[in-house]
């Protein structure tokens, strides 16, 4: 110690700072709620925009999926004519897409005499090997996401009654294999279909860009709304900070106290804002378009990430917004802080 008569102020432990900050929120509950509602509004705005984008993406994807399934079913009906008395063969390589699953469900309901299946389980299907699956079949469906089927298609179709092959994987073509007389290939994915798929991918990319853009704009609005709420709540207490310094509070303690307080306020506000901002678009879109259509293609992982992101962003923003005024007030000499008339 440099001076025998002057001691050094004790640094209060973290627990005490948390205690004082929580007490501060509790005893000025009304004012804290105003600040919290500022954060709630900001985060609800951000969350509802992001959630709305995710939902409308999911809706348009779901609509496309249903269009594709209907298109594929129509092609099968067109090729087969009456299904009665005919055998259908289905060979699955790799995982099934949702589109393919929905398509299979539809096809399984058609009145085929028999369905021979390899690599998957289909209602009323008869198990076969990948090599003999097409034997005696009228139409062969090649499904699954695996790009290269391990069986030679020529050998497969040689055992068929009428040769029709329908491949649901977008980019698969059989170029290089000489078509036999009467062989119909690429039923679904002719040039037109390819173009349609291309357009859909473009739409998806545009939608993603729109999502990012809306998120950025909402984030900016949220930053301003939250900073304003926290800036006001700290600035109007500069006199109080001056008083606390007169009573022996260390600048670091004041900074820490406000940081903890704003973290609590930010967390509570963003949690409420997130729930509000997620529920409102879910309910509204669900009401308008039907919940089945909405939940069909929605990515729960992306939705969850958006929820978590909003809470983290809200809490961090509140803390960052409080740092500047708290720092400013903590560094003021007590006399000027007491003179402050904000």
């Amino acid at each position, binding site marked *: 110690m440099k*001076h025998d008569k*002057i001691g050094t102020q004790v640094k209060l432990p973290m627990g005490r700072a948390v205690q004082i900050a929580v007490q501060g929120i509790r005893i000025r509950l009304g004012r804290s709620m105003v600040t919290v509602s500022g954060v709630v509004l900001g985060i609800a705005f951000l969350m509802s925009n992001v959630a709305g984008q995710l939902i409308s993406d999911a809706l348009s994807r779901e609509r496309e999926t249903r269009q594709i399934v209907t298109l594929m079913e129509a092609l099968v009906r067109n090729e087969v004519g009456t299904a009665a008395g005919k055998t259908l063969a289905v060979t699955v390589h790799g995982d099934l897409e949702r589109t393919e699953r929905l398509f299979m469900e539809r096809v399984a309901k058609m009145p085929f005499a028999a369905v021979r299946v390899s690599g998957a389980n289909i209602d009323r299907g008869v198990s076969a090997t990948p090599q003999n699956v097409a034997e005696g079949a009228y139409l062969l469906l090649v499904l699954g996401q695996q790009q290269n089927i391990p069986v030679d298609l020529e050998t497969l179709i040689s055992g068929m009654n009428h040769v029709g092959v329908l491949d649901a994987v977008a980019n698969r073509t059989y170029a290089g294999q000489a078509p036999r007389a009467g062989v119909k290939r690429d039923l679904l994915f002719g040039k037109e279909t390819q173009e349609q798929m291309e357009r859909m991918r473009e739409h998806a990319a545009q939608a993603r860009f729109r999502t990012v853009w809306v998120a950025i704009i909402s984030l900016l609005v949220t930053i301003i709304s939250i900073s304003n709420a926290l800036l006001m709540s700290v600035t109007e207490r500069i006199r109080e900070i001056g*008083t606390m310094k*007169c*009573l022996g*509070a260390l600048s670091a303690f004041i900074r820490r106290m406000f940081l903890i307080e704003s973290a609590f306020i930010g967390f509570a506000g963003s949690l409420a804002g997130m729930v509000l901002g997620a529920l409102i678009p879910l309910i509204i879109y669900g009401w308008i378009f039907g919940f089945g259509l909405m939940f069909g293609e929605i990515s729960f992982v992306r939705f969850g990430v958006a929820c978590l992101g909003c809470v983290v962003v809200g809490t961090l923003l509140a803390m960052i917004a409080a740092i500047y005024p708290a720092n400013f007030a903590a560094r003021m000499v007590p006399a*000027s802080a007491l003179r402050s008339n904000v």
Partner: protein
Amino acid sequence: MAFERELFFKDADAAARSGYVIRAVDVRKVYRMGDTETHALRGATVDIIRGEYLSIMGPSGSGKSTLFNMIGGLDKPTAGKVYIDQVDIAQLDPFELAWLRCRKVGYIFQSYNLIQVMSCIENVMLPMAFAGLDGEESREKALMILERVGLGGRALHKPAEMSGGQQQRVAIARALANTPDILLADEPTANLDLRTGEEIIKLFRTLCDELGVTVITATHDLKMLKTSDRIMWIEDGLISKITTPEEMELHIDEIH
């Protein structure tokens, strides 16, 4: 009693024995607002004796609040030195300065500066918390101090529910929380009616006599002047004279 006090403070040896609790040497303060400079203090030198009751007297704008802030370590002088207990407070690091404000000096303000959202007892317990004291111990001590200033029964009231005089008593209790050596009061009775102001002044006198606290008040309340041991007159940023209340009365008589 009054006679003894007078003797005590006129005796230079006694003053030296008791020591100076605060010394301000040629303190200057310039406030800059854009291009204009305001010289609030233009070289104030004062020695404050341990255990005395000193009033700082002067018209508004004379620099008495500025001097009050300087000797209390609430502001930094532009030039000059302030010693509290022989320590130059400009040399103190933030931790020592906070310790000084927490335990050495108790501050009382014209507008009370209570924390409105906290109850009386919470206000009094706050400086104790900053000193590292908490829990039941600080609650008991705060209650004891509140009783001492005559507010034992109102510990759980909020400042807004109390009269100005009561609020000022809470502020005094808060200033006493860590048993300071020095009580600094900036126009403590300016917002109070005559009778309440008198009660507060009596309380200061009692604290000074019984606890040996050095009381320094900036004021232009004449009753406060009569109760104090010495009166320091400040005019236009300079200390013009230091008198005793008796000399002041003589002075006023002369004018009449």
